[in-house]
């Protein structure tokens, strides 16, 4: 083939090719990493939450006044509220909860097996819920037991707590085996927590990374002086009627409150805003870069065809068929693209290391690499084929034209 002369000819025209090679390399490095991040965001968006999100109502209650400064008072209000909500026809179950899941953040802490080094610390979203949590969220115990009434705190202040973790968190903390009965340190060695139950999968968006499914549940009457949140799971048919009945039920017992009722799906939508935005931004960057680089390759080929019409005519006179001219320009652009891709791969790995050191993300994998490179090559061929076809159609008579 013509690779040798093409390579030598390119290397005698360095300025022309080097810019394009750099453009391809930079594009590939950025596109591959953006793509990788985008796939993770998309995966996070697509991932099932593991809870019965369609049939859950989220209630946010704002409270006012000095009474609510008192923990015991709040405990009574929360107990009364959830009892009343559970009485509503069509309600499967209800629980107080410290933060709404699926809202794209919330509260998290770092946990490690008691006595382990800090390197074992694993970040986990954390929710305080009561002993009706499993049925309300539609989670299942896969090891150990559910929360019982006795697990709920009976007074404010530090105590040793029984906790439930998701299977992913159990495996992250105790990769070698049974997490049930293990003690974990969530910030105080004096007051550790004991894992009493492991639930199946749950996933909540939390800015990406594995922590989104490594979730920790505390038992309690989740409340603050400023208010409390409830989740209510209903029969599908009763969802609307429960939805409209909620604030009446809550205001009946304690009228001086503000009750905001939402569906959990609405909350989930809000929680995905950032992820959706990231996906949009990342895909726009990818699209623009690929477009500009395709244009660059098109421009270079087009320019080099226009600049070399006489040479093309001469090559035709010396025996090049139309196919040979087409091949020549495709090969030339392929050589440039290959060199650019090789540099781009090196740059992409560097960028990947940098990103991984800054955030909790997955590393570049072979799927993203292969698709990214194939896409770029297809675009390169597409960008070359039009001017290359034009070149192949040029008349051999150009060889003898004097102007």
């Amino acid at each position: 083939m013509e690779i040798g002369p093409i390579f030598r000819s390119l290397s005698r025209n360095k300025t022309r090719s080097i810019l394009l090679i750099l453009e391809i390399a930079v594009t590939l490095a950025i596109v591959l990493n953006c793509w990788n991040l985008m796939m993770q965001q998309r995966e996070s968006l697509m991932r099932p939450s593991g809870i019965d999100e369609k049939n859950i109502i989220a209630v946010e209650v704002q409270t006012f006044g000095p009474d609510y400064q008192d923990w015991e008072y709040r405990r009574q209000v929360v107990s009364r509220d959830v009892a009343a909500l559970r009485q509503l026809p069509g309600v499967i179950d209800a629980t107080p909860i410290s933060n709404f899941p699926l809202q794209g953040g919330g509260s998290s802490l770092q946990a490690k097996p008691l006595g382990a080094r800090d390197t074992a610390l694993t970040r986990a979203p954390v929710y305080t819920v009561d002993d009706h949590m499993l049925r309300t969220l539609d989670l299942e115990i896969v090891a150990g037991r559910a929360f019982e009434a006795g697990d709920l705190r009976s007074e404010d202040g530090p105590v040793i707590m029984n906790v439930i973790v998701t299977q992913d968190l159990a495996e992250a903390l105790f990769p070698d085996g049974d997490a049930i009965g293990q003690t974990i340190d969530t910030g105080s060695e004096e007051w550790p927590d004991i894992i009493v139950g492991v639930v199946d999968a749950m996933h909540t968006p939390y800015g990406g990374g594995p922590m989104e499914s490594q979730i920790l549940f505390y038992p309690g009457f989740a409340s603050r002086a400023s208010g409390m949140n409830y989740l209510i799971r209903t029969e599908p048919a009763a969802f609307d009627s429960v939805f409209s009945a909620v604030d009446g039920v809550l205001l009946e017992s304690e009228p001086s409150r503000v009750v905001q009722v939402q569906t959990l799906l609405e909350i989930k939508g809000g929680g995905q805003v950032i992820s959706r935005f990231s996906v949009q931004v990342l895909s726009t960057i990818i699209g623009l870069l690929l477009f500009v680089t395709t244009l660059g390759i098109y421009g270079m080929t087009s320019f080099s065809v226009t600049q070399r019409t006489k040479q093309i005519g001469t090559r035709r006179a010396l025996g090049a068929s139309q196919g040979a001219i087409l091949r020549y320009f495709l090969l030339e652009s392929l050589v440039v693209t290959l060199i650019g891709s090789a540099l781009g791969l090196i740059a992409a790995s560097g960028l990947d290391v940098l990103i991984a050191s800054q955030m909790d993300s997955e590393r570049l994998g072979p799927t993203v690499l292969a698709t990214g490179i194939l896409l770029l090559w297809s675009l390169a061929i597409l960008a070359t084929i039009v001017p290359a076809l034009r070149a192949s159609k040029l008349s051999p008579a150009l060889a003898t034209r004097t102007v």
Partner: protein
Amino acid sequence: MPMIELVDVTKNYRTDLVETCALDSLSLAIEEGEFVSVSGPSGSGKTTFLNVVGLLDTFDQGTYTIDGQDVSKLTDRAQSRIRNEKIGFIFQGFNLIPDLDVFDNVDVPLRYRRLPREERRERIVRSLELVGLGGRLKHLPSQLSGGQQQRVAIARALASDPRLILADEPTGNLDSATAAEIMHLLHEINEEGATILMVTHDAGCAAQAQRQIHLLDGRLIDYRPTEAPNIRLSQIAPVS
């Protein structure tokens, strides 16, 4: 059978404004081994004639056969192959590829012929030695004088052992001493058996050919089919 035979070949150039008849019912036969010069004033159709003979351009009417083969029926690939194997081109502007060194330039037609690497190397070195440039393989065209560049171009034309050499004003861009050297080289090539068809402005160069033809407005003037026969008289067929 003449190597080249044109019968009533007509070629028009159409642009938006004008239609130029560059070849007007031209009929001509050239025998293998002849050295023919084509002269005529500027715009008389010399280059067009050479393009048609070299399969670089199409024509509108008439027939053109090379070695008995009607070229208008051939595919692009077959025509390219004839140009590659039978014809060597020499141009007024040398037409070397500026990004390639002397060796690679001479290599161009040999690669299109898909010859093995060793054979290509032998042919390149042999033909460059023939034109006296055996020591300049790695030079770029820009590092050579005009005469040297034309020698490289001649070596490139010779490397594939063509039976027909087509030259369009090969000495047009050279001083007279260099032109004389190039003419000498062409004579040597002709003596080796190659047929030469040379377009030239220069009356002195034209006079060195064994047979001269003159073009005016796309037509032959003073055309005598058997003027200045040099070899194999018996093979020359009369053309009416």
